């Protein structure tokens, strides 16, 4: 665990070695603002909640998180530092986990910077803060899922653009299976299969938390499993093709 911390620290500081992180945070906050106030009709709705913000978050994350994840391993491959990392006394799982947690913490920071929205809502009205809190936890879990997928895709290639595209596509698949349109389209399938497909949807599980304001054990298990599975695959892929 100490070694995960060492990897984590280097990665996390790495975000702030260049202006990229600040630019990312800026873009994220601007887009959050546009989605919440313009598209989400934050004021017009006349309701003191953060639903407009959280509703658009899966779509915002769909592009922004693969952009954070793409460099995790592709960069190590491109610069050859993967050879350095893998010949240090660090296990594969420690390296994968350390990098993942650093990126997750960075996304957590991005989410934390939207707290002024919460303050605004509290100033303007009397929102159900329990729901907001659950939504934030749900958003963090969703971010982790996207990130695990993106990290896994980043380990496939040394080209960050390819890693980004693969990440977006795969994340999109996990969103798509829960969209009503998609489910209608697939309605020729037997119900159990349809239900199974639907249960794989990141969108579905996220909406369950933000609308109900309850973090269900099933949602926790879903996000946890998704993250675990993709990080495991991530480690396996690196182990198999370290040298390419």
């Amino acid at each position, binding site marked *: 665990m100490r070694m995960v911390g060492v990897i984590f620290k*280097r990665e996390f500081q790495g975000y702030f*070695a260049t202006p990229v992180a600040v630019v990312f945070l800026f873009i994220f906050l601007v887009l959050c603002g546009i989605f919440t106030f313009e598209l989400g009709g934050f004021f017009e709705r006349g309701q003191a909640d953060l639903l407009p913000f959280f509703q658009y978050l899966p779509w915002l994350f769909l592009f922004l998180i693969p952009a954070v994840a793409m460099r995790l391993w592709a960069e190590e491959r491109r610069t050859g530092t993967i050879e350095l990392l893998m010949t240090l*006394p660090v296990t594969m799982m420690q390296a994968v986990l350390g990098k993942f947690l650093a990126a997750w913490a960075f996304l957590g920071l991005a989410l934390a910077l939207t707290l002024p929205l919460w303050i605004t809502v509290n100033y303007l009205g009397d929102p159900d803060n329990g729901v907001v809190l659950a939504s934030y936890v749900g958003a963090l879990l969703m971010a982790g899922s996207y990130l695990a997928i993106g990290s896994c895709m980043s380990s496939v290639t040394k080209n960050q653009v390819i890693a980004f595209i693969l990440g977006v596509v795969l994340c999109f698949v996990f969103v798509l299976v829960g969209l009503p349109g998609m489910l209608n389209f697939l309605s020729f399938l037997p119900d159990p299969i349809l239900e199974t497909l639907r249960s794989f949807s990141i969108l579905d599980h996220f909406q369950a938390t933000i609308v109900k304001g309850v973090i269900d054990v099933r949602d926790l298990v879903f996000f946890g499993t998704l993250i675990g599975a993709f990080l495991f695959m991530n480690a396996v892929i690196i182990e198999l093709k370290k040298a390419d």
Partner: protein
Amino acid sequence: MIEIRNLSKHFGPIRAVDNVSFSVAQGEVLGFLGPNGAGKSTTMKMVTGFLTPSEGTALVCGHDVQKEPIEAKRKLGYLPEGAPLYPDMTPRRFLHWAASVRGMPKAEGARRVAEVVERVQLGNVLDQRMETLSKGFKRRVGLAQAILHDPPVLVLDEPTDGLDPNQKHEVRSLIREMSREKAIVLSTHILEEVDAVCSRVILIARGKLLVDEAPREMLARSRYHNAVTVHVRGDSGEELERAVAEVATVERSDGGDSQEGLAQYTLFPRNGQPILPQVSERLAGLEVVDIHVEGGRLDEVFRNLTTADSESRS
């Protein structure tokens, strides 16, 4: 301290490393020679646990690199080919990070970092981002990282590549200095380096181990081993040939181009033994300006061994 048994690595149909075995003991500096693509780096990558061997085992201080990777890697310092580094970090941060990966407490880490920085002379660039460093400095940061934890086993892939002559000299003395208490493997393209620092040479070509011996023995394979080169005034080649015919054959070695009236000839002993006394006796009638004994030429041995192998295959 390093023991390699029947190590092979296949990439698809290509046998990059083919059944290579050798061992390196404490106090030895093993030079790894071979043409590009011979399998030097691949072998090193397997010893350091980066690549998984297709067959065979590699042991570092008794730990199987595949079965006990963490224990093996703890005993190992490695400078990978091309000295890859994190471009956004500074050498200071990077080395402190490496110290914490190696499990050193903060104070000890700082002490060791200061020590190796001194040793490889990084002082001036400690706070510069590593992507802005010159090739020579990058190589030295990589080297600093490799020796940071004072490992009993060092694997250095082309440690002097890209360094200027002064830096090469420094790195070589550093390696010689460390060699007493460590087992060191280094690969190089520079043949003089082998003579300068290595106590043993391994020549590998097309994945196969061709030669494993001391540099002196390798030199003895050269046609030039024990040959005598003389500079003679005037055009006296035939006379010279007649004089030493019993003990040596004569070849003109300045390309037929006498400079300042001096012709250069190389006398190859007929039986491979030292011939200087016999030769100097027989040269009495000639105006010899310079005479010296050749030790042998590694580049010639290298060429013979590596091309002979490819010819016998084709």
